């Protein structure tokens, strides 16, 4: 044999081929490669606002007391169950036992106390500190029970605890989570090649239902053309938030793929600078709202993927009110309103961040505004520039952006927020909402808030961003909707 190395190689290759060929069970795929548009700056969900962090680690690496289900329902996670006192102030969480962090240490009530105290502490770097604002104290009753006392009733406390920013971390490893995340989830970080991919491997010591995958790779491909090619070539198994809606038509026609469309939390709006004349005049803002044909934008910019909205609220939320008719497309009314406001020869700046909903949507809106006599000065900006110039410096008239945080109507109560609304009546509604625990009362207040901003035409509400993604036809268990920024891989498996 040694005299003929080529034959030897051929024989062993043949044997290898047979080994794979004759035992289909071995060939069953145990890994998944997910395409993502943006790379997370770090992997610590308690220390950064970037959606990409949660998109990698939420439910996969880190878990909180509660969690979001794919339909947006609040499910138990590390907390097995909970009791709420009659005054709505004390939440007693019964924790799962036998839970281990990836470094092998045990999870118990002390970790919960540590995590919540750390998030709400003075000088905390948590990006969503408001989630923890109502917590008065966190007390450890016993290793499997923790008592959270609120300073005032908060109907959305369990919802708040499901956010990626509220995950439970261990005191020993919390400081290093940015590069070496240690959580309680079913996957653990195995490799992070900066600029290319993050690889997660199965954590065998997981306490809950075992996951069906060995390995999950998140690959960062921002260019839509490259993403399309990678999907077509089979390099990616799924791209849950596909950046180019125009390609979805082609994926739909291909039996290898399935296009999943669900709703997202992304309210796409034409934001207006409410303090800058003439946009401080509600009539001018109303005129702009009536000048916009939402369906044309959805068809033209998003190739039909999207749901028109008339206020800053997700249509799949039970408390949503459809107010699209109030700001229906009506160019004549728009012109009349502009005349009434005494505005003519109006030229507004329109700053567009990179996503295609903004760049393409912006061109369509510019054309629609031109029809009613408003000229726009379009500037395409990169995200960093958008954050500096529009979000921080408020140096803009109009901009298009999708607000992807769940239930974020509260931003309208902020005085210094970039569109500069901060109406006192609206703030009062939000204050009432924060104190209300009765579901009927909460719904009523949420609807009042939606109507208030629609009546004031704070921004022009365009459409709810569809979560349109492509997955391999054989991949099952991927979230259809995105109740939060996440790619929950815990239930994903390959169909034989």
């Amino acid at each position: 044999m040694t005299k003929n190395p080529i034959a030897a190689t051929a024989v062993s290759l043949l044997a290898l081929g047979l080994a794979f060929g004759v035992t289909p069970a071995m060939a069953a795929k145990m890994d998944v490669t997910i395409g993502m548009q943006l790379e997370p700056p770090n992997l610590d969900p308690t220390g950064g606002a970037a959606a990409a962090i949660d998109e990698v680690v939420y439910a996969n690496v880190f878990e909180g007391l509660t969690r979001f289900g794919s339909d947006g329902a609040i499910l138990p996670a590390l907390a097995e169950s909970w009791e709420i006192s009659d005054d709505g102030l004390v939440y007693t969480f019964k924790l799962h036992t036998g839970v281990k962090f990836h470094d092998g240490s045990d999870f118990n009530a002390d970790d919960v106390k540590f995590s919540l105290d750390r998030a709400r502490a003075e000088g905390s770097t948590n990006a969503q500190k408001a989630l923890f604002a109502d917590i008065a104290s966190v007390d450890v009753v016993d290793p499997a029970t923790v008592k959270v006392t609120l300073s005032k009733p908060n109907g959305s406390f369990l919802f708040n605890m499901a956010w990626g920013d509220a995950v439970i971390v261990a005191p020993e490893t919390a400081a290093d989570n940015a590069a070496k995340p240690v959580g309680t989830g079913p996957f653990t970080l195995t490799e992070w090649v900066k600029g290319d991919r993050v690889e997660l491997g199965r954590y065998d010591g997981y306490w809950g239902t075992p996951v069906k995958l060995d390995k999950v790779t998140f690959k960062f491909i921002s260019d839509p053309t490259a993403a399309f090619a990678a999907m077509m070539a089979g390099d990616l198994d799924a791209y849950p938030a596909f950046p180019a809606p125009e390609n979805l038509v082609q994926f739909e026609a291909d039996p290898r793929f399935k296009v999943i469309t669900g709703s997202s939390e992304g309210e796409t709006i034409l934001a207006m600078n409410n303090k800058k004349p003439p946009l401080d005049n509600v009539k001018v803002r109303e005129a702009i709202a009536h000048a916009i044909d939402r369906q044309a934008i959805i068809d033209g910019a998003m190739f039909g993927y999207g749901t028109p909205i008339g206020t800053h609220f997700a249509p799949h939320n039970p408390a949503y009110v459809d107010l699209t008719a109030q700001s229906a497309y009506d160019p004549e009314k728009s012109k009349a309103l502009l005349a009434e406001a005494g505005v003519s020869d109006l030229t507004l700046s329109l700053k567009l961040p990179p996503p295609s909903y903004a760049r393409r949507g912006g061109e369509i809106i510019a054309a629609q505004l031109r029809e009613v006599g408003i000229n726009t000065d379009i500037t395409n900006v990169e995200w960093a520039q958008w954050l500096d110039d529009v979000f921080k410096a408020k140096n803009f008239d109009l901009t298009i952006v999708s607000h992807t945080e769940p239930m974020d109507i509260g931003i309208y109560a902020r005085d210094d927020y970039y569109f500069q609304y901060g109406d006192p009546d609206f703030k009062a509604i939000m204050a009432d909402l924060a104190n209300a625990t009765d579901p009927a009362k909460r719904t009523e207040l949420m609807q009042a808030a939606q109507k208030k901003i629609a009546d004031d035409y704070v921004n022009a509400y365009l459409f709810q961003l569809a979560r349109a993604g492509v997955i391999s036809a054989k991949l099952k268990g991927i979230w259809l909707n995105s109740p939060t920024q996440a790619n929950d891989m815990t239930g994903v498996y390959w169909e034989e």
Partner: protein
Amino acid sequence: MSTPPADRSFLRMALGHPAFVLGFLLSALFIALALVSFLWTPFDPTKMDIAGKLKGPSLEHWFGTDHFGRDMFSMIMVGARVSIAVAFVAVGIGMIVGVPLGLYAAARRGSLIDEIIMRGNDLVFAFPSLLLAIMITAVFGPGAVNAIIAIGIFNVPVFARLARGAALSLWTRDFVLAARVAGKSRARISAEHILPNIANLLIVQGTIQFSLAILAEAALAYVGLGAQPPLPSWGRMLADAQTLISLAPHMALFPGFAIIVTVLGLNLMGDGLRDLFDPKLRRGR
């Protein structure tokens, strides 16, 4: 021996030069399209019709429609106007600034000012031209005017070098010496004797630079730093087509062809002009 007037002989020779004729016709076609677009386009190039988007070429829409349902042929026509205007003004800036600089440097050959001008040119030349243009538009903001300035700036050293090199060889010629003896100033000699004698070279180089400027404008627009919407631009049409190329290839083909044909036409014309102006080749015919 009777010789026909110089211009008639030039015209006859030009017509006998097939590359020049082809180049001239192609360039003229796009210049004509650009001029006609001021008066008439089949459709309003900014008028969107979302329901009629991504239509292939038809009798109604000769080049089809884009992703917003705009008429591609009308956009190409207006895009020609933008491309040609940007290239024309940019090359104009290069000539108006570069040629006097080069002539001045030649007149003061070897002086400190000559060194400063030419090393300054080297500095601009050392930057990759497109990178320089991106830098300028990034600082001053995107737009057609800034694209013109950016492209104009990297045209300056091209003309300055050409003018200086050509002028230097003329300064040693007898007719220039005669003019100096007659007491003419260096500036007057440069303007009256040197410039007319290097005009041929400048025209040839100008034609080549014109085609390069059209390419540069398209490249800037492609990366979003050229003419801003709603003004159509060939480069941005290509960028828009990028993700749609498998769905609507006509969106990339037509602006792509427009750029290729215009640049090819200008290059052929430039080559032809060089042949026609070159006295050695002229004698050979």
